[in-house]
């Protein structure tokens, strides 16, 4: 041994160096990074740090595992000693402990992997049939009067839905069809519930809901028959199944998918009681305005009609006749006066003419008119001496007698 050791060329390590080397080997092997490992949980401990430590084992071997707090917080089930699981993670070495272990970043009950494969296969098949086409989706009513609910009568989902409806739209009528939401009877019960609900009450919208759970818990909503029943419902369906990150095939087939039961109740009631109250206030205002404007219109047309009426009133005709009469009278009078004036003028003229032609006019100049028995004497042959005569001068008459004659 002494001799050998002198010529021995074997590698020499410190513990740290060896451990680092091993760690490098493990971390450099792709098949050990991001891998799934199946086994049963044992020695599970979860100290106050929140990190989770356990051993995965099968019939003949065991593997130390650690799951950091952040990853452990995302678990959707509570692993216990004895649970058969699939752990996803990477193999490395904990140098201080000299132990290789699996650093787990995801953990699921055993079988979920197979279920996921089945889920993808069925999804592709139904998708190809067009069951998930957007064109198939029916509109969800804005103001439902009657909402159907298909869910478990005892779960938190129902309580959440009813509380949400109570808060948002308590005037709505609700019909619940209680069904088991997991287990072997669930698919058949859900299908029957949808069929009866459509036929007996025909609600405006149906909420198909279930609280959160593992992929196995939600499996009834991936059942092909349930998915088909959803697409065949007469009333539109809103699904609210599991949590935000859960997608089931029923979600794809539904007319609307909500992330949770509460959200499904919200989507079913886009118009809330507050909106209804606001609308009532508005209608009240429109009504009052409507009547005011009707009255105002009537008043305006009444005023107009009154004016019309006044226009054609006999009173008005009477007045206008009277006015016409006045007018005529005035015009008549004027004409008359004019005529009179003309006549008077003509009369004057004639009178003057007459006066001018009157033989008596010359009397003023010293001439006299001599008449015998009312006949003007213009020739000596008309008289003889001794005849009585009348002599007319400018300012009167006197009698005379012929005393001599010259012939």
């Amino acid at each position, binding site marked *: 041994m002494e001799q050998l050791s002198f010529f021995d060329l074997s590698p020499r390590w410190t513990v740290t160096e060896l451990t680092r080397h091993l760690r490098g080997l493990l971390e450099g092997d792709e098949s050990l990074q991001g891998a799934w490992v199946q086994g049963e949980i044992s020695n599970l401990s979860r100290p106050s740090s929140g990190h989770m430590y356990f051993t995965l084992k099968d019939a003949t071997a065991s593997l130390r595992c650690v799951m950091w707090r952040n990853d452990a917080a995302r678990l959707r089930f509570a692993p216990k000693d004895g649970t058969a699981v699939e752990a996803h993670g990477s193999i490395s070495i904990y140098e201080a402990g000299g132990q290789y272990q699996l650093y787990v970043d995801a953990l699921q009950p055993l079988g979920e992997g197979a279920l996921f494969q089945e889920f993808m296969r069925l999804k592709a098949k139904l998708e190809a049939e067009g069951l998930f086409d957007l064109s198939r989706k029916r509109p969800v009513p804005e103001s439902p009067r009657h909402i159907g609910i298909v869910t478990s009568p005892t779960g938190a989902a129902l309580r959440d839905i009813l509380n949400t409806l109570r808060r948002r739209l308590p*005037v709505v009528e*609700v019909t*619940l*069809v209680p069904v088991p939401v997991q287990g072997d009877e669930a698919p058949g019960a859900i299908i029957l519930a949808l069929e009866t609900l459509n036929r007996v*009450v025909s609600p405006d919208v149906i909420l198909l809901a279930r609280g959160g759970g593992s992929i196995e818990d939600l499996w009834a909503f991936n059942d092909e028959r349930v998915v088909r029943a959803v697409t065949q419902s007469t009333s539109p369906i809103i699904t609210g199944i599991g949590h935000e990150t859960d997608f089931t095939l029923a979600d794809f087939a539904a007319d609307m998918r909500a992330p949770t039961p509460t959200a499904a109740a919200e989507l079913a009631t886009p118009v809330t009681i507050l909106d209804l*109250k606001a609308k*009532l206030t508005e209608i*009240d205002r429109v009504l009052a305005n*409507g009547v005011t404007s009707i009255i105002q219109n009537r008043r305006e047309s009444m005023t107009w009609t009154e004016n019309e009426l006044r226009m054609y009133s006999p009173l008005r005709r009477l007045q206008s006749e009277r006015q016409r009469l006045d007018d005529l009278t005035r015009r008549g009078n004027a004409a008359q006066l004019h005529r009179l004036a003309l006549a008077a003028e003509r009369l004057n003229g004639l009178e003057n003419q007459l006066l001018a032609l009157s033989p008596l006019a010359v009397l003023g100049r010293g001439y006299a008119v001599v008449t015998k028995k009312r006949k003007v004497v213009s020739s000596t042959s008309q008289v003889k001496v001794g005849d009585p005569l009348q002599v007319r001068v400018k300012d009167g008459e006197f009698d005379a007698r012929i005393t001599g004659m010259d012939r």
Partner: protein
Amino acid sequence: MAKTEPKAIGKLTYEEAFSELEAIVIALEAGDQPLEEALSLFERGQGLTRRCAELLDEAELKVNKLTGEKLEPFQEQE
């Protein structure tokens, strides 16, 4: 609406009252009825608005349970 004898306002459901209310608003907006009729429509409209508001204030979610083909009130567990 005006054809049949109108139901007593106090007996109308929210939906009945509201749809009649809408019809009245439309009729009044058209405004082609005699004044007296318009006024009585208006009065009925006001009654209906009050009825609707009352129903909204008093509204309590009505939950039935469908078992088989039978509907019955659903008792919630607290």
